């Protein structure tokens, strides 16, 4: 099952030309760079994300200007900005991967069932999901994070769940609509006519078709999820600052620095967010351009027609 879908995914990328191809490549490069930061943070970062003094117990400068010891400077808590930026990639990756998995695990089955069986269940689910979707997503995430922080604490789990509440309706919607259009295809009808159970039809015939959309949506949602995570952190409903480095929280602390002309505490975490979100968006958009046959532009190739060898009798006749 994995093989054909992988060639389906990578084939068009190889085939693509011009701008879309470079868009995908740039997106992949940026994303990989951040994944490397996330995986190898302890080896890449000069200090721990919460280290505020040297091994000899000398405290780092407070809001120290970028220098040889601290390439990106230090912040108001005397921690190293560069190290926090690198460790932030780890937090972002953890939360986003969990959030995408949660949203898929809930949204995909709901969409499949709702789209395939239709009827009352479909109408009720659609209305609930649409209501959720219409609501300002950030407010929804804040309220959920606020309520969950009492029970789960303010960790990666709380952040991931709050973010997935926002994206479940999106996955649901896309999957449901796709299922509805696929449901009427002849091959699905044939499977049903052969007596396949709904479970078989859904998992073997419909899911396989619908799942192709997932890479594009998941990448674009991951980009969005990073922004949501940062927003939660900025408002003080993200991850407990003592547990992990998080870019949104760092920016919140940096806002008051701007008035004092201290630029390095906010600029670098901000750049990290912009770069990673841009990378993921380029990847998602590029994949969409490349995979979506409607938008895809194939290179125009000259067609060489075989030379006419024999004249047809009708031509011979002349008239």
């Amino acid at each position, binding site marked *: 099952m994995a093989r054909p879908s992988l060639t389906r995914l990578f084939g068009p990328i190889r085939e693509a030309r011009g*701008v879309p191809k470079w868009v995908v490549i740039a997106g992949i490069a940026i994303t990989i760079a951040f994944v490397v930061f996330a995986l190898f943070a302890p080896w890449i970062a000069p200090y721990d994300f919460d280290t505020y003094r040297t091994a000899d117990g000398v405290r780092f400068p407070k809001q120290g200007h970028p220098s040889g010891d601290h390439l990106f400077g230090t912040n108001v808590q005397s921690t190293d900005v560069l190290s926090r930026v690198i460790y932030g990639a780890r937090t972002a990756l953890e939360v986003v991967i969990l959030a995408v998995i949660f949203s898929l695990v809930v949204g995909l089955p709901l969409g499949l069932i709702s789209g395939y069986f239709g009827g009352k269940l479909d109408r009720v689910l659609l209305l609930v999901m649409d209501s959720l979707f219409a609501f300002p997503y950030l407010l929804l995430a804040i309220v959920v994070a606020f309520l969950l922080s009492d029970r789960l604490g303010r960790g990666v789990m709380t952040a991931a769940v709050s973010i997935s509440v926002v994206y479940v309706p999106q996955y649901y919607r896309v999957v449901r609509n796709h299922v509805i259009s696929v449901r009427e295809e002849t091959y699905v009808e044939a499977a049903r006519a052969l007596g396949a159970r709904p479970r078989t039809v859904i998992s073997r015939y419909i899911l396989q078709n619908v799942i192709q959309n997932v890479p594009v949506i998941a990448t674009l949602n991951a980009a969005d999820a990073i922004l949501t995570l940062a927003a939660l952190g900025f408002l003080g409903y993200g991850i407990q600052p003592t547990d992990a480095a998080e870019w949104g929280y760092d920016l919140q602390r940096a806002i008051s620095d701007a008035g004092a002309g201290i630029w390095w505490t*906010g600029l670098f975490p901000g750049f990290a967010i912009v770069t990673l979100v841009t990378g993921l968006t380029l990847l998602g958009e590029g994949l969409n351009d490349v995979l979506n046959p409607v938008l895809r532009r194939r290179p125009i190739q000259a067609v060489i027609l075989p030379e006419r060898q024999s004249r047809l009798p009708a031509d011979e006749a002349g008239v």
Partner: protein
Amino acid sequence: MAGGQQTTSLRTYALTRLGLALPMVLILLTMVFLLLRVAPGDPITAALGGRLPPEQLEERREAAGYNRSLAVQYLEYLGNVATLDFGETIVDNRPVTRVITQNGAATLELTVVALFVALVVGIGVGLVSGRYRDTPVDVAGRLFGILIYAAPVFFLGFLAQLVFAQWLGWFPTSGRASPVTSYDLDTPTNLFLVDSLIALDFSAFSDVLSHLVLPAVTLGLVTGGVFIRLIRVNVLQTLQGDYIEAARARGLSERTVMWHHAFRNALVPVITVVGLQVALLLGGAVLTEQTFNWPGIGSELIRYLNNRDYIAIQGIITFFALVVVIVSLLIDLLNAWVDPRVRY
């Protein structure tokens, strides 16, 4: 004949659409109630627990009616919302309706100006980008759109404060007006721009405007990023239409084809998108208000969240839910009025 038919179908559409909006309101209100009233226990204990002796807490609970069954409280909540009563905050005994009229006005002022900025930027860049597809201009436009979309509003706000307030000193960074202005100005509408115009106080007007520039442009740019993308795609799709080819075949100048045929049609869906953006704009407003110390309803929401004032949170969230449903209803009706295809 035709006119009569049109009004009938528009009315039918409006009624159907209204029929969809009501269950949506009910679902949202039920969710708000379940999340904020049922899940955490009673609001009095949540906000004041530990600060008042147990007997007094019990008294306040009894007085506020939290000892009754949840079903009764739910019905009462729905009834209150129907009469636009959103409750009274626990920590500072303020009716939520006053939070809405006072701080909501600040948010309204911010979001309306931001929406204007977003439309100007989004339509401008989007049209040019779509018209010159795959040229360097398009790539630049798309990249701008993606970068702007990728920038959290509070990061743009940080940069704006750094450059335009700290280094250049052009604009103030926090609040809606300088202390003198806010002391002197009569605020019947709470929309300071309008109030200063009513008072014909132009120095106050320019003071208010200079406070508004950075937050509104910041929020507007972020929102505009989404418009760029959508308008570009619309232009691309419109340009593939047969009637564009027909117009070109008739020998019309490229400029006429673009302005009268392509752009006009590419802009109709913008109405729908503006409706969808309102939710995004409200979320962005919360962040912008925190960044620029803007005393809007979003800042108040965060303050009440920090104080664990469930009644205030519930009231404000309920209000947001109503706003979202009403705006999307209005946008759909407007759309149906402009574009007859929507009605069928």
